[in-house]
């Protein structure tokens, strides 16, 4: 049996895939070293276009419209260029609404295509290119600390980690943020409010990592323009102590932060990567049954967000407060007694 897992590891080998939104060009080769801001792949966004109703605008029959055209198929155009005109008493002109080219002519209409825009994908995580999917994606490998979270607002950044609260149960407040926060990725403990997000924006912080974010704040956070990551998801659960301790040990180091959670069919985990100047990291092996002594985190119920150690693997099903009897483990959460948690609600921590 395999269970969910989550990585919060100070020194591991990390592989991160960087994908183009749709097919394009990968600019790197296997073995290349990349920096965070380096462009590693690019693609052209399908260009904007306009249909110009020449016959209608000049008030001429469609089959006569071609006689009034001042441009031809394939010709480059700029905003305001005259595309067609009609002289005489009722003179009229058609002007280009965009920069681009004439893509098509026919039936009294012009099809204009805007100059295509190029989208760049940067490396985000400094490291080495170890895999390439031509035209689609690359995989970057590095060694360092990796912390996976549950929720993020979609943004990415690279900056210096700065712990601004004393412990994992403390919320980050606006008073914790000042001019020295500029360019930093701020680490709070439990949760965050709207005023604090605004203060971080005003002080040009580069990101924020907290335990949880309130559901009502999500629309604000989606407009925050910098990454906000919640290690425990949505609500008020404080940051897991093990995560907080690891982040505190990384205070002052540069980190790559991704708040990308994908969509409902392609879920991704937000992450924090802190590259380290070493070659060897611990390998993660998720494909084995849960074992006594392994560290786990609880995903549901009264102990949600707490981590502990598997102390027992009962052969009989564990009884839940709901009345359900399901396979599970006895977990030591540092309390006086062990708690029984279903495997479905446990994540192995690496």
């Amino acid at each position, binding site marked *: 049996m395999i269970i969910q897992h989550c990585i919060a590891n100070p020194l591991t080998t990390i592989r991160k895939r960087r994908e183009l939104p749709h097919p394009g060009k990968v600019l790197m080769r296997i073995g290349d070293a990349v920096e965070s801001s380096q462009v590693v792949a690019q693609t052209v966004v399908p260009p904007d276009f306009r249909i110009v109703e020449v016959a209608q605008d000049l008030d001429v029959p469609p089959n006569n419209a071609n006689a009034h055209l001042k441009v031809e198929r394939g010709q480059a155009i700029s905003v305001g260029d005259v595309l067609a005109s009609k002289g005489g008493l009722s003179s009229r002109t058609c002007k280009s609404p965009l920069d681009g080219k004439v893509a098509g002519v026919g039936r009294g209409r012009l099809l204009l295509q805007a100059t295509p825009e190029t989208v760049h994908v940067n490396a985000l995580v400094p490291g080495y290119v170890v895999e390439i999917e031509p035209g689609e994606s690359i995989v970057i490998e590095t060694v360092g600390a990796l912390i996976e979270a*549950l929720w993020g607002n979609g943004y990415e950044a690279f900056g210096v980690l700065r712990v601004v609260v004393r412990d994992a149960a403390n919320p980050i407040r606006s008073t914790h943020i000042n001019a020295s926060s500029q360019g930093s990725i701020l680490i709070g403990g439990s949760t965050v409010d709207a005023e604090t997000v605004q203060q971080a924006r005003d002080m040009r912080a580069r990101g924020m990592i907290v335990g949880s974010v309130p559901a009502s704040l999500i629309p604000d956070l989606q407009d925050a323009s910098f990454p906000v990551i919640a290690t425990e998801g*949505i609500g008020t659960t404080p940051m897991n102590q093990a995560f907080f301790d690891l982040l505190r040990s990384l205070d002052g180091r540069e980190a790559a932060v991704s708040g990308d959670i994908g969509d*409902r*069919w392609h879920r991704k985990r937000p992450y924090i990567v802190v590259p380290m100047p070493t070659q060897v990291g611990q390998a993660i092996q998720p494909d084995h049954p849960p074992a006594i002594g392994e560290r786990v985190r609880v995903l549901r119920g009264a102990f949600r967000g707490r981590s502990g150690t598997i102390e027992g693997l009962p052969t009989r099903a564990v009884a839940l407060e*709901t009345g*359900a009897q399901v396979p599970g483990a006895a977990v030591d959460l540092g309390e006086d007694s062990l708690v029984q948690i279903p495997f*479905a*609600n446990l994540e192995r921590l690496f």
Partner: protein
Amino acid sequence: MAEARNIESILVADCGTVVTKLLLLERVGGSYQFVAQAETLTTGKPPWNDLSNGVVQGVQELEAITGRTLYSRGHIVVPRHGQEGVDALVVVLSAVEPLKVVLAGLVKEMSLESGRRAVGGTYATVEATLTREGNLTAPQETWARTVRNMAPDAVLLVGGVDGGARRPVLELAEAVALGSSMLEEERRPTVIYAGNAAIRSQVTKLLGDITRVVAVDNVRPTTDTEHLGPAQSALEELHVEERLRAAPGIGNLSAWSRLPLVPVSTAFSRVVDFLWHREGNADRGVLGVDVGAATTTLAATFEGRSYTTVYEHGVANGLIEWVERHGMDRIMRWVPDEVEPEELQALLYNMELQPSAIPQTPRELWVELAIVREMLRTALGTARPTWDVGSAAMQAARAMPRTDPILISGGGIVLSPRPGQTLLAALDGLQPAGITTLLLDSSRAAPAIGAVAGIKPLAAASALDSGAFVSLGTVISPVGPARPGEVVMRMSISYEGGGELNVEAHNGEIEVWPLLDEQRATLEIRPGRRIDIGMGPGQGGRVEVLGGLVGLVVDARGRPLRLPRDAERRRRMINRWIWDVGG
């Protein structure tokens, strides 16, 4: 694979969005039975990105249970060699993204509605609709931009009865062609044309140079006829081609199996169809509901006609999107405890982020069952307009048609700790009318049975007869106008083996009378003058019924079910219903 007549052991790998189930069906004596099953996490997403990984994990558990070797030298052994392996491996899949469809058509209530129903019958979602909606001129630029921006997997182009409107359909086709031409060739949508048959060749010619066109029969050949089958089949084929065959790790599974991949909805629909033929009641349909993490499937058969609806939401994936569209109150109203909106919203978000987690506290369970109710209600709202129920119709026009049995399946609903909880969620969500038996697919074997039916129907029939499903009980739901507390029905229960009970049902109440699993009883039912129990208003009679895990249930709460607006009263009422059914 061995010849069908020689198949004695079948391994079914059912890869769901969250859980992968492995079921081993074997010939035991003269019948086929599930002899072992195992489940594990589905591994189609990171860090695994390989469905076969989870399947192998599950197979290894089966090996530990049965003591047999099924997996050897890097593959599942098919066909069997002596004691090693199985005669056939069938792969059932739902763990893939649905097709993204742009629907283009003319009249909202006609072709577009039919097109929407066709899409609803398979794993596909309508991402955008192209229609004039009262504009004098066709907004071709907007339509083309929509196709270009969405880059859908398919455009379902409908409109015009056969021999009817031409120009408006061609304008849509032109816009689709323009939008498609602006995408890279590999991203261009397949156009399924199911409109006016008279211009099929024109549409194909117009679009054929730009993208792939599949022309099928019109979904609305005349104003008052609907013909969804060919369009649905085209979408299903595209789904298998674009999604199932592209699922991560499917290469291994297909190489081991060498049988066609089966979508879960297809497999589930086969079981419902089979139940209808086995029951042999022409005046009643059979309904099946499969509530999963990502989708809710409703399969129904009436007078031998099968209908499948795949609703794009389940109890985890897509919850937030659902709440944004329908509002949180729809879920909140079913929760028997007072819960703050912020807390509920947080729980819903976390359920979506961690779909494999299960309810651990009573509150989490009530919220999950509230979601089940709403998924069933919304899916039913999509499914019912597609049904031609024929003689199964009740006299009350809005009442559910007579369906017996109703099969309840899917991890989202069958794992509730108490049978009464499952039963009440199903009754609240579906609001059946008349007399029906609720069957519970507690081992979640229905998709596996449906998949087996595709290669060895005898084995599937045998598995069904050997008790694959358990009865929750017989439910009588009287329908008709009545005052609160009024006696709507009197009933005498004569138990097989002796004993009789005379009872009354009061409007607004749900009551459970003792009738154990597999125990039989004869009911003499006498409904009120305007009350219909499926025999017509005021008509009663003798009925033989079977018991179940809950018992004999009389749901006299009325149809449609009305919940008090006052939150405190509503919670008291829901708590009483839960108590009444032993939930």
